[in-house]
């Protein structure tokens, strides 16, 4: 099996970086710039801002992030399996039953983790 054809990706990426930088430069060069005290305030519906916006936030966002990490890493393990499980050059037929059993256990633990998170109230948003 040949290696994937990567050079076009890098060329495209480089051109995109150039495109983005050009845009930012254009925005910088064209157009006037006049600072006034009111224009420089954070726009908060005409109210004078109180305090800093970078404040501690709700811990539930943190929980969701951790849970995402757990599930996304498990998802990453699932991709190679899904591609090779039943394809022609993938897992040989005599191993398929074993892999099937192992994956069932894996999915069960995934489901258990999910039920545990639910019972712990991670999904409750009020």
């Amino acid at each position, binding site marked *: 099996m040949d290696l*994937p*054809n*990567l050079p*076009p*990706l890098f*060329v*495209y*990426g480089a051109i*995109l970086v150039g*495109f*983005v*930088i050009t*845009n*930012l430069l*254009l*925005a910088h060069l064209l*157009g*006037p*710039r006049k600072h006034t005290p009111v*224009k*420089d*305030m*954070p*726009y*908060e*519906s005409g109210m004078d*801002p109180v305090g*800093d*916006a*970078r404040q501690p*936030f*709700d811990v539930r*966002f943190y929980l*969701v*992030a951790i*849970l*995402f990490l757990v*599930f*996304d890493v498990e*998802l990453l393990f*699932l*991709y190679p399996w*899904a*591609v*090779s*499980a*039943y*394809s022609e050059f993938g897992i040989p037929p005599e191993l*398929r039953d074993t892999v099937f059993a192992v*994956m*069932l256990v894996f*999915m069960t633990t*995934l*489901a258990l983790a*999910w039920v545990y*998170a*639910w019972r712990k109230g*991670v*999904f409750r*948003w009020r």
Partner: protein
Amino acid sequence: MPEILITLLTIGVVVAAIPGVCNYLILLERKLSAWMQDRIGPNRVGPMGLFQPLADGIKLLLKEEVVPPHVDKVLYLLAPALSVFTAMMAFAVVPFGPVDDSVPGFLRFIIAPNINIGLIFIFAITSLGVYGIVLGGWASNNKYSALGAMRASAQVVSYEIPLGMSVLGLALMSGTLNLEELMHQQTQGGIMSWNIWFQPLAAIMFFTASLAEANRLPFDLAECEQELIGGWHTEYSALKWALFFLGEYTHMITISFLTSILFLGGWNLPFIAEATSNYPGVWLVKLLVLFGKAFSFICLMIMLRWTIPRFRFDQLMELAWKVMIPLSLANLVMVMFCMQFGFNRWWLFVGSLGLFAAWGVISANLREAELAARPGYVKPKKKAAAVAHGHGHAAGHH
């Protein structure tokens, strides 16, 4: 023509076309919204407002660039660049036309052909897009931006999982993540081999989760104008604001192409563009068919915007974690059983509908139980009885 020239030609066309197409998509969105709301929409610049995008582009280019002193300058500039870069980069592995022998040699409708991890590449790159949002919101040092960025990150992160899990069944069936290969398999078998027949539930979940990833209504909690002004891009103006929107519309284009390629058979259309059809110019017809499918998905997204009201944040998270994740996992297990024991693929169609209905019933019951556990909950009575008593159950139901 040498390979490198073909690549450069394709890249040139795509990089030039995407901003233009996005501009006209904004016009399309405004026109469609106007029609849905019984208005006329933009009609001043050019016939039927056709030059409106050009005027908007020039205006955005020449507007004042405001970089307020309270922002973190580097991150503030990095955020729009990152969000447009990731959105356009994801398009690299999407075949936006037929990729076979019928296409003339100097044309190629994919930037990076033969990438065997195509789908993973797209998910990896688009999930980097959340950095654009978080950085923009944090760097702006504005409370609305911070709120929008937090909501957006939680939302994008949550919908990432059902998005990735819904295509796993597809990968299991097709044995590949290469988008060209996925399209090829469906086009060879005609309409009855389109993946939507075997994975209807996955198709719906994929499209819904993609909408959430792109922050489109009804999932635009991150930038809801009525509550958060503009969400994370409140402090942005001129071309930097335009870059955010370029990113969002590019994301829409990618989603539409992806949904058409993954589930609706790519360029395949009965009687017009079949695998066996072999008339001159067939590649153009195939191209137009795929473009038509993608275009109808974009129209669907725009029309959904004015059809479904915005979710509340807890509903949004519940949809992701309590509905879509278990459903996509169950769908995956179903495909797994089907492949292992060699059942007919059409059972997947029946099974998907069954799963959908079953989870509907289960989650309704769970909801009822959850409500009942709350203090002060009064069990809703039958309609007639409620009218007769008329008191004592104001809290709780609805």
